[in-house]
């Protein structure tokens, strides 16, 4: 009986000692609670934490959550947890699975989710820093690192893009003008390199794949008008297509609703016409 009590006391002491000495790495190997093992836990644990953060605090310190939640300072539940600086280093070595939505094509597909669920993005992404890498012109070449994968993420424009962007831009792969002003960004460089029209001369032989380009460019222009701006300022086109001067070639296509545009902006017609072209006698 006495031996049994001694044995039990010794065992209990050893267990307490082991628990006290348990390293962080070993803590990470403790079995996860059952509800942590469902597929939805990653996206649904926020609600559970909000309802009972004390339960989370049994195993998790604040630094564990801030390993993923870059907006931890804005989440009261995380701030309510105890702090344990040692956990930060431990968490730095962990990898967390990306949400199911983050497929290999997510960079191309993310607009709808990002537009309507910005709160969710901010959990893992510092919007002002990580999003601006792409959405403010990608001027800083620092690559954001995928928190879940511990590897650098490709920038919006792929490797070598500046060298061979012509095709993507001319074929309107995406909307370049959303981030790059054609007049201030594209035309400036193209002009300096002698590629853009620096004077108002036409038929200089630049578009030399077909000798009829000057008089037959209408189809190409209507298909790729956005990319024309990368080399041709508005004055260039008005040499021939203004009703005020020059060759006065009408550029309006079928279905052109001048009345609608004039209703929206009465000054629009005046860019190319003297007076009111819809009411010449008025």
């Amino acid at each position, binding site marked *: 009986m006495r031996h049994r009590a001694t044995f039990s006391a010794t065992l209990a002491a050893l267990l307490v000692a082991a628990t006290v000495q348990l390293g962080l790495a070993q803590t990470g190997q403790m079995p996860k609670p059952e509800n942590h093992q469902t597929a939805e836990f990653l*996206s649904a644990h926020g609600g559970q934490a909000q309802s009972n953060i004390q339960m989370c605090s049994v195993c998790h310190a604040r630094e564990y959550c801030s390993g993923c939640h870059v907006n931890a300072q804005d989440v009261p539940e995380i701030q309510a947890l105890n702090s344990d600086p040692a956990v930060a280093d431990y968490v*730095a070595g962990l990898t967390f699975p990306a949400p199911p939505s983050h*497929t*290999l*094509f997510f960079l191309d*597909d993310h607009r*709808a*989710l990002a*537009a*309507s*669920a*910005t*709160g969710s993005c901010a959990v893992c*992404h*510092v919007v*002002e820093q990580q999003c*601006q*890498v792409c959405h403010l012109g990608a001027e*800083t070449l*620092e690559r954001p*690192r995928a928190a879940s994968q511990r590897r650098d993420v490709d920038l919006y424009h792929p490797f*070598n893009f500046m060298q061979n962007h012509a*095709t993507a831009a*001319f*074929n*309107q*792969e995406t909307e370049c*003008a959303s*981030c*790059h002003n*054609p007049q*201030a*960004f594209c*035309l400036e*460089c193209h002009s*300096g*390199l002698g590629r853009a029209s*620096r004077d108002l001369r036409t038929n200089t032989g630049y578009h030399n794949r*077909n000798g*009829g*380009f000057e*008089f037959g*460019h209408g189809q*190409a222009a*209507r*298909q790729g008008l956005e990319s024309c701006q990368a080399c041709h*300022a*508005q004055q260039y086109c008005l040499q021939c*297509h203004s009703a005020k001067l020059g060759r006065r070639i009408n550029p*309006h*296509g*079928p279905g*052109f609703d001048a009345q*609608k*545009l004039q209703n*929206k*902006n009465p000054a*629009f017609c005046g*860019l*190319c016409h003297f007076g009111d072209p819809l009411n010449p006698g008025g």
Partner: protein
Amino acid sequence: MRVSGQASRCAGTRLRFTRTAVAFTGVAVAWCLWSASALQAQQWRMRISSRVQYVEGQSLQRDSVPISDVRVTNDGRFKADNIFVTCPTGSEYCYYYGSGPTLKTYPSVLDADLNVFGFGVEGLRFYANTRFQTAFGADENFWPVEPEVAVLNAYAELNRRQYRFRLGRDYTVNGLGFFGYDGGSALVRFNPWWTQVELYGGRALARGIPVPINSSIFDPLGDLKPSDNGWLIGLRASARPSTSSSLQVVYQRQYTGQSDYIATERIGFEGSWYVIPAVSLLGHADYDLAYGDWGKAGLRAGWQINPMFYAEGGYLRYRPVFSLQEIWYAFSPVAYNGWNLSTAIRPLPNLSFKLWLERRQYEETDAEVAFFTTTDRDYRFGIRGTWVLNEMWSFDGGYWRNHGFGAALNSGDLRVAMKPHDQLTLGGRFSAWQQLEEFRLNQGRVWGLGLDLRWRTRQGTVWFSVDRYDHDNRGDQAIQDWSQWRSAVGFSYYLGSEPGRTP
């Protein structure tokens, strides 16, 4: 006979760049000192990111020859050394573009953003993001650096669970694009459905550049430059009816400086629905109320068939958007419609492939002529593979083609990265491409070989890259020679509270 040369360089420009360089450094240092001393009472976080590049630009030069020196063949007109020329009707001269001198410059960018918080008022913070850019070297004129000092954001924010207010310079990124303004925004969050409603607006900034639309940067537009700055106003509402679906509607109107004169007016829709976690539907569309036509639209369905296969397909449409302060809508731009198919295959956890195929067709332009036609159909396809061999080695390679109505690209690359240390990455890359540009004749192939280095710590990153490109098989020497060197060195550094919280 030379009819055009490179842009001349003048002493005034050089002085401007010298001043900019001094300002560039001075402002950055001053900001650092001010931040460090004045903000001790608050919490703050700052990121400084900079790069200096070496860029060689291969210029083109227009030249001419008397028509009497030109010979006519079935393939066109050529001058004596077999360079293709264009001869305007009635002109005594024929014209051509040839490869000009190599222009060299050192573009430099410094971004600094500052986040100040912890004022004792819940959710109050100040945020500013500034960019300084310039270019050095003998040929700096060809590189776009305007504006040399740009404030991208500068606002005060009060952000709480139910609302968020911002005042200052800000931008909105929504389904209609990326728009900046000097003004403010008010966002309200409420249940049900995690609903958000945001009203934003103010003095509009030009599209794609953080300056007013009447900035001196647009002086080259002459009489077509808007004389007054415009106004932007927008209303955005989003909701998440469930954890697997989201919706957004945004309405945005931009006025010219004159009251009631509209520059742009659009409405956009976004939506996503994860039918089950493995099946998704994503869609977006915007309608141009000013012009009266749909702009961009897309509908994409994705299916994670199993951990190894993912497939998606969809419809897309694109028509560019212009302002009624520009002439472009008068030219009746047309849209293209298309479809695409993509798949991702992950046969092993550390090996993945992406394949994509896309077909596009332009709408009828009613501008085709017998002597000049171009295709109204585009296609593109590609494949990319990534193999993470182990903690140290990873490989990435791809091949893709893009055939459009005026330009085409045939390109591939192969990259290898070695990570001898958790903080250090060394990379090598090899690339090759052929390209047809903007209805121009072209020939040959460009080969590229590059090296890069990246040293990343929790406080920041330092990186360096150098690339060499060689253009061979240029049968016609008038074809632009793409042979060149490019190099870049840069760093990002985070300091202040919680500097380890890098993106």
